């Protein structure tokens, strides 16, 4: 019958249109990033130079690492509000150790240990005692803040840092900043863990539906803890790199990493798998913020105006996805 035939054709058309929409939606934030990048490349003089692009990478590397860690937390539906202070902790611990003569590899191990310790405490509070991670990490953040400032007397630590350490934050290998290698390494490891291993799958599972995961025989406590530990570990590594980049240990240097890290993850959650924190999304989220900051700086825009423009760009980029998909963030 003709009446029957019509709808089938329509269905096909509709579905191909839909799948295009679907695609657009998944990648609209990425598209916004691309447009932004092209815009800067065309209009801003030295934007598209190797040295500037390397600058961007260097500037976002610590943020990306913190964001990648937070991604694990979000995936498991645990929020770590203490990351900023964990960045600060290892950012002063490592310089302090180095200055007192500890060899570099051991100082870096010290950062790992500090990150692990913070993560372990957070996850004990959350999974054993049952304090919601938002409160627990708000409180441990307050404690870490006190420790960071107390252990330095509030002072920044300068001087006496070995060249090998400074090389991590400021040096280059084959013309590419060491920080870039570090970032790529962390992102790849995080991506692999989350997307290709059962470890990552289960972190997503406990975040997606804890009860369902536990009834399927998944150790919910373990994977929620693991996610919080990864958050802290990554933050601690970022802190060590930050100290190397700044050539000094600053007790409050980490604070911006909380809100910026969250922004990174949020923006990332608008792409790839909308509503879900993914390592790839977070990476592009950090790149997004990095490109905006750098581009607007090159344009010579006033800091305050930058802040306004940044907010507007984020809104526009996210609005496209949000019109059509329901994003649930937490």
């Amino acid at each position, binding site marked *: 019958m003709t009446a029957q035939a019509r*709808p089938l054709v329509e269905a096909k058309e509709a579905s191909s249109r839909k799948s295009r929409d679907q695609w657009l939606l998944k990648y609209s934030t990425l598209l916004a990033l691309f447009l932004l990048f092209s815009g800067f490349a065309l209009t801003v003089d030295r934007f598209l130079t190797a040295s500037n692009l390397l600058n961007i990478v260097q500037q976002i590397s610590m943020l990306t690492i913190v964001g990648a860690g937070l991604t694990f937390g979000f995936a498991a539906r645990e929020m770590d509000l203490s990351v900023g202070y964990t960045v600060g902790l290892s950012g002063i611990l490592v310089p302090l150790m180095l200055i007192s003569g500890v060899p570099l590899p051991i100082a870096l191990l010290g950062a790992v240990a500090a990150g692990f310790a913070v993560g372990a405490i957070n996850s004990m509070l959350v999974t054993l005692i049952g304090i919601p991670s938002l409160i627990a990490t708000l409180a441990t953040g307050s404690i870490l803040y006190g420790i960071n400032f107390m252990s330095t007397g509030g002072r920044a630590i300068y001087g006496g840092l070995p060249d090998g350490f400074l090389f991590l934050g400021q040096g280059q290998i084959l013309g590419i900043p060491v920080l870039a290698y570090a970032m790529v390494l962390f992102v790849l490891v995080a991506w692999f863990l989350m997307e290709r291993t059962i470890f990552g799958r289960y972190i997503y599972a406990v975040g997606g539906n804890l009860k369902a995961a536990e009834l399927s*025989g998944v150790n919910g406590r373990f994977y929620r803890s693991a996610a919080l530990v990864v958050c802290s570990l990554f933050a601690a590594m970022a802190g060590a790199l930050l100290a190397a980049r700044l050539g000094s240990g600053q007790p409050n240097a980490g604070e911006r990493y909380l809100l910026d890290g969250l922004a990174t993850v949020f923006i990332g959650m608008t792409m790839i798998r909308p509503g879900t924190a993914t390592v790839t999304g977070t990476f592009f989220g950090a790149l997004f913020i990095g490109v905006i900051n750098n581009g607007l700086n090159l344009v010579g825009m006033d800091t305050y105006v930058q802040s306004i423009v940044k907010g507007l760009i984020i809104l526009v980029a996210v609005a496209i996805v949000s019109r059509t998909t329901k994003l649930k963030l937490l």
Partner: protein
Amino acid sequence: MTVRLADIVMQYPGTRALDHVDVDFLFSEVHGLIGENGAGKTTLVSILGGSKQPTSGTIAIAGVETVLASAGDALAKGIAHVSQEGSLVPGLSAAQNVLLGDEPRLGLGIIDTRALKRRAAELLDRWFPQVAIDLDAAVDTLPMADQKVIEIVRALRGEIRLLILDEPTATLPAREKENLWRIIRSLPPRGVGVVLVSHFLSEVKALSDRITVLRDGRHVTTLPSAEVSEAQLVDFMLQRAGKTAVAIGENGDGARAAGETVMEIADWHVGGVRVDRFAIRAGEIVGLIGLTGAGHFGFARSLYTGEGFLSGSTVFAGQPLARPDARSMKARGVAFIPDHRMENSLIGEWSVRENLAMVHPHAGAHAGVLSMGLEEKAARAAMALFNVKAHSPEQRIQDLSGGNKQKVSIGKWLYGAPERYRLMIFVEPTEGVDIGAKREIHRHIQRLAAEGTAIIVASSDLMEVADIADRVVPFVQGQAARALSRAEFSESRFIAAMAGDPQ
């Protein structure tokens, strides 16, 4: 008076859920709506209830074309919708839920708390005079059946001319079911039409004046229920899709030789439940039945999770164990398929593939590294096994129809499963599942038993238990009563046993 849905099309990405459907509902009838899982029933009633907008098509109330822009809009026009998933506001009390959106006020927007409680009690008494519910309790602490009652009372509180019930009895035990049936029948004479979506064909046939059958999103037929038999309805539902009705489950008594004892417990005390002795042997299917709150579900759950375990001795596969817990029981070869699948089993935002891979992800991994290709292959196999209706393994679970969700909830235990489970525990295995799929699931359960798995089925569907179980343990007020053997199976016997009638 009627509501007429004309030429309704609902297009989802990759799925046409409704394809030019025409149907009209009278305010003076109970109108049954049946069809396979994924046939489009929920979609159709969501459009009727205003919570979804069709891709195309028109809606006319009493001949006047209208738009139902939202659930609130439909409500204002006299159409109330009790959805399949349940929709109460946790944290608010039962009374507050009943009158949500229509609170009595003292003026200036101030709530009259006392009048609210009174009115809620009146409403409950008017529609469900036999039911006692603590209206001050937080609604999420009430049993499922009571929650359903609260939802229905809420729907009926206003000037309603059409009440939509999407599988209202899927999770209700027998006694509440009967209550509800009585209410449904009483509504048309009071000027309220009912649209009833259900997989219980006998229920639909008994209650409805007219029945509409949907198949693959298309309208098959609408006809007076007096003019069709159940068998014909099944034909309408399945026919032309190339599926033939499966013969009613013959479980071939005694064909399976029960093997050695798999699990044996004694003096169990879990939560409010006490069981002196319970044992199950390989290849045996044991049904657990009971009224609401009798403890049969809690008991079944605790065998796997140890939830609420207080005391008792347990021997599994010849080895004593202190107290069950999910991980160690899974490691011992126990599978647990819980009820309330969206809450206890599935992850809505995940794809079918990812949900299926949740229990045994190793099956989709190469040397510990997950491979999408392998996963997809294994997922397709599991989907084929259970005949899951989805446009691809990548479809999100929350976009599947209720019954297909249930199939995934069971299928995930068989994806990459070991040779065989020692014990599988099912709670409401066919909640919201269509008649064809129900038989398939029963066949699977029987096949698994035949392969030597011990099986526990806790269900509020007595016919289901009668069909597949070798032995039925009725629960009465937290205690296991004497088991019934197949020879004693009959609906009246079950009901008597659940009521605590010692025979």
